[in-house]
Every structure is written in structure tokens, then in C-alpha cells.
């Protein structure tokens, strides 16, 4: 049981990293961003390029992958997502889904369709409550909690953070203050993409790396964002861990149903919450 709880925390951490960007992009720009899968996946492939092909150390590869995704995310935002502001939601969904599919093909073309294995870069265990926990996963959970605190401080204490919070409330209102809100949308997008890559880096050694890895996890992250409330940062954090825990518990008793359960939870939330989309 201890292990199940810990496993739930691990999944929660991953879901949290990837969901922040989705939630912020939706909350500020009203774009359902399927292209998020692709920045996430490309980030992981850049990581393995450094770690597997160049045989550089894992932390170096991780930092380089995050740095490399910044210009890529910027270009996607600037030339694709930005054109979708103000369009209907289904249209943004279709357009970004197209970007995701193009990205998948691009990855197959560059790195090939076969999965890559990546091993746990730390490989040591921590004994806690009679269970041995991989230190790598402990770090992952701690990082997610730290990130939550840092983001909270960022949005509470900085001018940039306040502008983004204001844009979540009313982006035209921010324009009316003489602030170029589009610039901050780029920033939110790039930040969200970098955090997704961080999630991908954490997740890569414990899952398999293949061109469709982003699509699989993205649906779960959409569930996190819907349950937590679009653009609600605290809600995203809580719902990521709640759904992660739900997945872990379900997997213990009904392994095939773990993902289904997440969507059942999402449906229940949608039924009982007044629609504010």
C-alpha cells in the first residue's frame, strides 16, 4: 500500500509538470493546445540525443533539452498559436492537433519509429516505511512540490506574474492598461513548454520513449486541467496529485482500468460542476 501511494505521487508529479502549460495556455489564450504533446516529446528526444548518442551525462542532457525547447516553443507560439487567438475552441483544437501529428512524423523521420529505453540516472534506493523507493522518483515528487511553491511565489510577488494573473481574468482589460499582453502570452507558452519538457525528462527513464508518448499522456493532462479548472494553478496541482493517486489505486486492484478511471472522474466533475468554460 505504501508503494501504491508513492506510485500515485510519482504519477501526480508528472501530470502536474505537463498540465501547467496546458492550463495556462487555455486560461490566458483560450487555445486548447494539442501541440503541447509535441514540445514535450521533442524535449525528451533531445535529451536522449545527448544522453544516448553523445553519451553526455543525464543532468547536462536535461538542461540542454530544456534550453533547446525554448526557441522551438517560441516559434510554435509565434507562428501558429498566436494566429488562433480569438478563434473558436474546436478550431484551435484541430489546428494544434495537426501540429502535433506533423511533429510525430518529424520525430519518426529524425529519430525513427522504434522506442528507446533510458535507464534511471541515479539508480539508488531510499528505504522508507519498509519500502525501497527509487531516489530518482523521490526527487521527482519533491521537485513538483518545489515547483508549485515557486510558481505560487512567482505569480504572487512579481509584476510579470501579476500581469499573467490579470490576463487570466481578462486579457482585453490588460491591453487596456497599455500592456502588450501578447508578449506575456509568449512567455506563458514558453514557460509551460519548458515545464512539460521537465516532466518528460523525469518521466522518460520510467516509461518508454516513442513518437506517440506525448499523445498518450496529453489526454490524461487534459483531464487534470478540466478537473482542476482551466487556468487555476492551485486546482491543477491538487487535481494532478488526486488523479495520479486515483490511477495508482485503481491500477492496484484493476490494472487495465487505471486510465479509464481518470476519465470517469473527469466526467463526474463535469457533471457536478457548473460549466464555466
Amino acid at each position: 500500500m505504501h508503494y501504491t501511494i508513492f506510485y500515485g505521487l510519482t504519477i501526480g508529479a508528472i501530470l502536474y509538470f505537463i498540465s501547467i502549460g496546458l492550463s495556462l495556455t487555455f486560461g490566458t489564450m483560450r487555445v486548447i493546445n494539442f501541440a503541447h504533446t509535441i514540445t514535450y516529446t521533442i524535449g525528451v528526444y533531445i535529451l536522449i540525443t545527448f544522453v544516448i548518442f553523445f553519451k553526455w551525462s543525464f543532468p547536462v542532457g536535461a538542461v540542454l533539452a530544456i534550453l533547446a525547447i525554448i526557441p522551438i516553443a517560441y516559434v510554435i507560439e509565434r507562428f501558429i498559436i498566436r494566429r488562433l487567438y480569438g478563434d473558436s475552441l474546436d478550431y484551435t483544437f484541430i489546428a494544434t492537433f495537426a501540429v502535433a501529428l506533423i511533429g510525430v512524423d518529424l520525430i519518426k523521420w529524425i529519430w525513427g519509429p522504434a522506442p528507446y529505453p533510458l535507464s534511471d540516472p541515479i539508480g539508488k534506493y531510499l528505504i522508507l516505511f519498509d519500502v525501497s523507493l527509487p531516489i530518482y522518483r523521490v526527487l521527482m515528487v519533491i521537485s513538483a512540490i518545489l515547483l508549485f511553491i515557486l510558481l505560487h511565489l512567482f505569480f504572487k510577488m512579481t509584476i510579470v506574474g501579476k500581469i499573467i494573473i490579470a490576463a487570466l481574468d481578462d486579457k482585453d482589460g490588460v491591453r487596456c492598461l497599455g500592456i502588450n499582453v501578447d508578449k506575456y502570452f509568449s512567455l506563458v507558452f514558453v514557460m509551460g513548454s519548458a515545464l512539460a519538457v521537465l516532466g518528460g525528462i523525469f518521466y522518460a527513464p520510467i516509461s518508454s520513449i516513442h513518437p506517440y508518448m506525448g499523445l498518450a499522456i496529453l489526454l490524461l493532462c487534459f483531464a487534470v486541467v478540466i478537473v482542476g479548472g482551466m487556468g487555476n494553478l492551485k486546482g491543477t496541482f491538487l487535481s494532478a496529485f488526486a488523479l495520479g493517486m486515483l490511477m495508482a489505486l485503481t491500477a492496484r486492484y484493476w490494472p487495465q482500468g487505471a486510465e479509464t478511471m481518470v476519465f470517469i472522474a473527469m466526467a463526474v466533475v463535469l457533471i457536478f460542476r457548473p460549466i464555466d468554460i
Partner: protein
Amino acid sequence: MSEILVADRLSKHFGGLIAVNKVNFSIMADEVTGIIGPNGSGKTTLFNLISGFFPPTEGRITFFDNEITHIPPYERVIKGIVRTFQLVSVFNSMTVWENLVLSSIRFKEKHVSLRKFFFSSAKDKEIKENCLRALKLVGLQSNAQALTSELSYGSKRMLEIGIALSLNPKLLLLDEPLAGLSDGEISEVIDLLKQIKKNFTLVIIEHKISKIINLVDRLCVMNEGSFICEGNPDDALCNPVVRECYWGKREIS
């Protein structure tokens, strides 16, 4: 008196619908201009064109003799064109004070400087005074630390006007500032407008003419996207075309 804003044959089409139709009009410095007209006559669309939220289908806009037809909304704010919305726009998840600080961070500089990274650095003396001035004008001192979402609609309207004033506008466009308010709140807003008209150039859209008739220096009447009449308020009201278009067969209340 000089013209500060001139619109020249300004039009906006939405598909086949002509919301604003070849409007020529100008705004004089230090004047209060009222725009009235039935629902759907294009008043809000005209504001959206002036504030840059929509590009015009044709025509041009100049502000202090500079063409601004194609510059984005935020740059127009920096040039001094500030607006409020028909449905109040304030930042609900922040306190009243934070709303004003956010609108004042550009007070001294043209652009938000990232050097001032921390929101608390906005506690700078001049910014604080600017916020305080706006807060007093709109009478929300006792609500400064309240969460904006908890304010009444009337107080939110006051805050919205306060935010606009804190931006120190050269031209302030108010889109139906009295809509949705109680009688008490309406007289508060009118008192505020009477007070600020001494220092600011205002354009006020209003649906019910009786409320603003004593406030405006000039009245423009819009119908189906065009100005059917403009001039001093009493003349405009007596104009038979206006009477027929706007009130139909009914009497003026």
C-alpha cells in the same frame, strides 16, 4: 478649442452587416461628447475601432495629428486613449489596490520594465500616490484591500473608471458607464464624471439620454451605423429626424 481625435470615413463591416458606416467625426479637447443611439446602432463598435480592438474596414483615425488606424490597442493606451467596457472589466482575482498598482506600473515609464521585477517594487512613492489619487476619486478607500470579486457591480464600475483615470488618459471613452447600476450608484457615477470632466476629455456612450443630458457639451446620435445628427444637446434633441429614429412615436421622458 482643437480637435484631438479625428475619424475619417470610418467603417466596420461584419460580413454583410455594416455596423459602422462611413462615420466622420472629431473629438474636441476638454469637451464631453455624448453618443446615444438605439441598441445595435454601432456605438460600441465605434469605440472598438477607436481603441483598436477591431481594424476598420475602411477609413482612418488620427490622434493629435498622428495616424493611429493600424496600431494595436496597448499602444493607443500609451498614446493616451483609454476606454472602459459596457460590461465592467476589472481583475477579479486581485484586490482593489492591486488593480490600481497594475494600472500604475507604467505610470513613469513608457513600457513595463522588467528591471522592476517584484510587484512590491511598485511601492515606489509616485506609483503609490497615483493609486491613492485614483482610489480617492472613486471613493473606494475603505475597500482598498478587498478582493475585487467581492465588490458590488456599482463599485466595480467605479474601480474600472479609477483604473482608467490612473492611466492619466488624454481621451477617456466610457461605454455605457451607467448600465446595470442602481439609482444610487448612477448618481455616484454621474457626480464622479462631473468632477473629472474638468480635467479630462470624455466621450460617453449612453442608452438613456436623460441621464447624461446635463453632463455633455455635445451630443451625437447614431442610428444604423451612421451619425444622424450631432451638435449641442438641446438642438440634437429637437431635431425631428432624431425624434423619429430614436424615440419613434413615444414621447421624451
